[in-house]
């Protein structure tokens, strides 16, 4: 997705005297302090992790294509589900959003770069090392972690040589996220152009502002949790062992105190992206801008007091179950505000349906399906039936795949012409959207049915009455996987031979980033614009 060096150098502002262009060769990417270079690194990294995590999903669905054990051992199957979760959450979705933040926030707020460019480089360059550490667990004694991405003790403590690698990979990923988030917050607070007040910021900037806060507040808690796992295994502590007065359930509380805000970390930037794209193609300003900001903040606040809805069946006191049920259902209110605002933005707009808009509308509809199944799961007595079934798998995949990942694809189609100066192939883009949308529903919708009928998650084999729906689901998975190869092809084709894009790119697009050339100069706004 990177533009060629010469193009960028030609675009460097004339008065930008003590700034240099990119270094030649590979060292450009190793040594860069430029927000766009680092952003592209994040995106390429996230895409390769998406393919690796996706390949693991294919193994899972292949084994589940038919009842009985066909292709892999149960232990390896469990390694696949665990690693698929960890890689997709920490390797694919989060870095993709951080990459988009890096590329887009400075131009959107009229800043020259990120506030702390050297630390920005470090935030990225920890990631490949941490991921290699995580993925290489597949090749050590005892294989990769297989106790689920949530790392519950005591099961996770049975992991072999992979155990300390898992713990430290999570630590490194956490350090990277915290530094990235500190940088994003400092950038938003300090780099805005004169006149760019908080309530004028584009919604993508707002959602990332709040997401970064969530990350800084919760990643250290995850670090604490995995540190306690480490000391329980190697240094004789008893945090999660009842014999020593500890409690294994305590891990779940700490983990989900991180984990629930984490799911909003994975979706708030998506809300931001969609809130940028829908007004552009509806040719109307975003409906209810300030209510969008307050809804995002409310979701962030509520995300801290709902964690135990992941644990309704562990034996919580009834008062706790009631509290967490009602608090969780409250989240539907600000989320509903958002969905209605998107719909109202489109209402009576002069709509066109280019690929980014299609992905955004797909997002709104399918995220809402995931939101409703979430509301069902929030009901404590009902969750006793649904807990740890495929219904849960269907629920969170609806919010993460046609939710978070669709938003990243929408963002890629929407901003690629700005980044590279080249348009993608609209016909192929639309084809990619329809393939993805059809197959993602074939993949995940049947999982609701098998889940409600009682099929548990994280098993390599199942009772024969679930066979038909599982076969359909697997076919959807293979189709969805193949469609993403098309995505890579469209992106590369656009960079290589796409027709020239204008600076405005989309006639309905508003915001500072569209006042820059396509591709933009190496340092976005070396001289800050004044926003009136």
């Amino acid at each position, binding site marked *: 997705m990177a533009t060629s060096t010469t193009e960028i150098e030609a675009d460097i502002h004339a008065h930008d005297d003590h700034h240099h262009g990119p270094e030649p060769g590979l060292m450009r990417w*190793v040594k860069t302090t430029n927000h766009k270079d680092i952003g592209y690194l994040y995106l390429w990294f996230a895409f390769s992790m998406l393919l690796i995590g996706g390949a693991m999903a294919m193994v899972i669905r292949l084994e589940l294509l038919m009842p009985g054990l066909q292709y892999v051992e149960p232990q390896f199957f469990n390694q696949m589900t665990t690693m698929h979760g960890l890689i997709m959450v920490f390797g694919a979705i989060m870095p993709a959003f951080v990459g988009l933040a890096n590329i887009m926030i400075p131009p959107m707020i009229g800043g020259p770069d990120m506030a702390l460019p050297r630390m920005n480089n*470090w935030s990225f*360059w920890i990631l490949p090392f941490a991921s290699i550490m995580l993925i290489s667990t597949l090749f050590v004694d005892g294989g990769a972690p297989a106790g689920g991405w949530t790392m519950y003790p005591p099961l996770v403590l049975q992991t072999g040589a992979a155990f300390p690698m898992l713990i430290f990979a999570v630590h490194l990923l956490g350090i990277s996220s915290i530094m990235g988030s500190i940088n994003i917050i*400092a950038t938003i607070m300090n*780099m805005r152009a004169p006149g760019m007040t908080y309530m004028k910021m584009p919604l993508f900037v707002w959602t990332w502002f709040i997401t970064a806060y969530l990350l800084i507040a919760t990643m*250290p808690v995850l670090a604490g949790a995995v540190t*306690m796992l480490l000391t329980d295994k190697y240094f004789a502590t*008893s945090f999660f062992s009842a014999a020593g*007065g500890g409690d294994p359930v305590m891990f779940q509380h700490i983990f989900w105190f991180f984990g629930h805000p984490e799911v909003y970390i994975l979706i708030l930037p998506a809300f931001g992206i969609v809130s940028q794209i829908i007004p552009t193609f509806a040719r109307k300003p975003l409906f209810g801008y300030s209510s969008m900001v307050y809804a995002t903040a409310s979701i962030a606040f509520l995300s801290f007091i709902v964690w135990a809805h992941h644990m309704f069946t562990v034996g919580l006191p009834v008062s706790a179950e009631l509290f967490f049920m009602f608090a969780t259902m409250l989240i539907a209110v600000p989320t509903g505000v958002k969905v209605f605002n998107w719909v109202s933005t489109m209402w009576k707009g002069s709509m066109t349906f280019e690929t980014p808009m299609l992905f955004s509308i797909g997002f709104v509809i399918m995220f809402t399906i995931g939101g409703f199944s979430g509301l069902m799961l929030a009901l404590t007595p009902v969750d006793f039936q649904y807990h740890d079934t495929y219904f849960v798998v269907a629920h969170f995949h609806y919010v993460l795949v046609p939710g978070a990942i669709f938003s990243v694809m929408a963002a890629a189609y929407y901003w690629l012409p700005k980044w590279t100066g080249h348009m993608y192939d609209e016909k192929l883009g639309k084809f990619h959207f329809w393939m993805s949308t059809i197959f993602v529903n074939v993949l995940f919708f049947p999982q609701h049915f098998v889940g409600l009928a009682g099929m548990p998650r994280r098993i390599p084999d199942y009772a024969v009455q679930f066979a038909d729906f599982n076969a359909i689901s697997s076919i959807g998975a293979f189709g969805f996987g193949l469609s993403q190869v098309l995505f890579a092809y469209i992106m590369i084709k656009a960079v290589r031979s796409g027709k020239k894009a204008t600076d405005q790119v989309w006639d309905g697009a508003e915001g500072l980033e569209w006042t820059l050339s396509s591709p933009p100069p190496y*340092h976005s706004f070396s001289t800050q614009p004044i926003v009136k």
Partner: protein
Amino acid sequence: MTTSTSTDNQHYFVPDTTIWPFLASIGLTSLVWGFIQILNGNSGKFMMIAGAMVLFFTFFRWFGEVIHESESSTYSGWEDKSFRLGMSWFIFSEVMFFAAFFGVLFYARVLSVPWLGGAGEEFDTHKWLWDTYQATWPTNGPGNVGGDFGLVAWSGLPLVNTLLLLSSGVTVTWAHHALKHNNRQHLIWGLAATVALGTIFLICQGVEYAHAYDINLTLGSGIYGSTFFMLTGFHGMHVLLGTIMLFVVLLRSMRGHFTAKNHFAFEAAAWYWHFVDVVWLGLFIFVYIV
């Protein structure tokens, strides 16, 4: 949104390309990779030391560059604000790290230990599992994990340590006032006193740990030993880091760095020191006294 470009806007300093972050990643990865090898029973000591050295060298050069830029007036108030925001939010992340361990302490003391003794739902399970177990704090659980242990009295070294840290908070503030009034001598003395108090604190903590192990209070003494050593241990590591930061600031002050208006590094170290101080007060109350 209408925009126009101003011509007299100030220029934000975007640093040139740099190799330090990449090297720091290599150092950090080698450090933890060595530790992983040791935990898995392989030899990893050399790798750990090599990683730590790379990391130290990298930070030395990286921060050296930043200090040079700062002293050669590369930064204006604009860049300074980025550093301040960065440090504040970093300290917030540290607060959340300690919050996790305090959360564990409260959860164990208020909820899970009483539950082991049958509190809450009033089931009788505990009578069948561990009839004689007294579910009161301090405890090492129904398994008497690690064996019987003694307690460290709050009125001994912990009280001394509290006084040490509180007075170090005073000395660092004294140094700050001296810096703001261009009194270099008092600045240096104030910082030296703070570093000394921090070092004495760490020595006292070491002595206290040795005493704790003598009375069989160890990291393996059930949930009490776990929370006691993890909370005080991580706090001690942060005191060490804070002391190193203040020591670097002291050396820089002796070289004539900082002015009454421009001294972000001093303030960052001082903020960090006050944070460490506040965490200790929490520890003193909830780990030692109550």
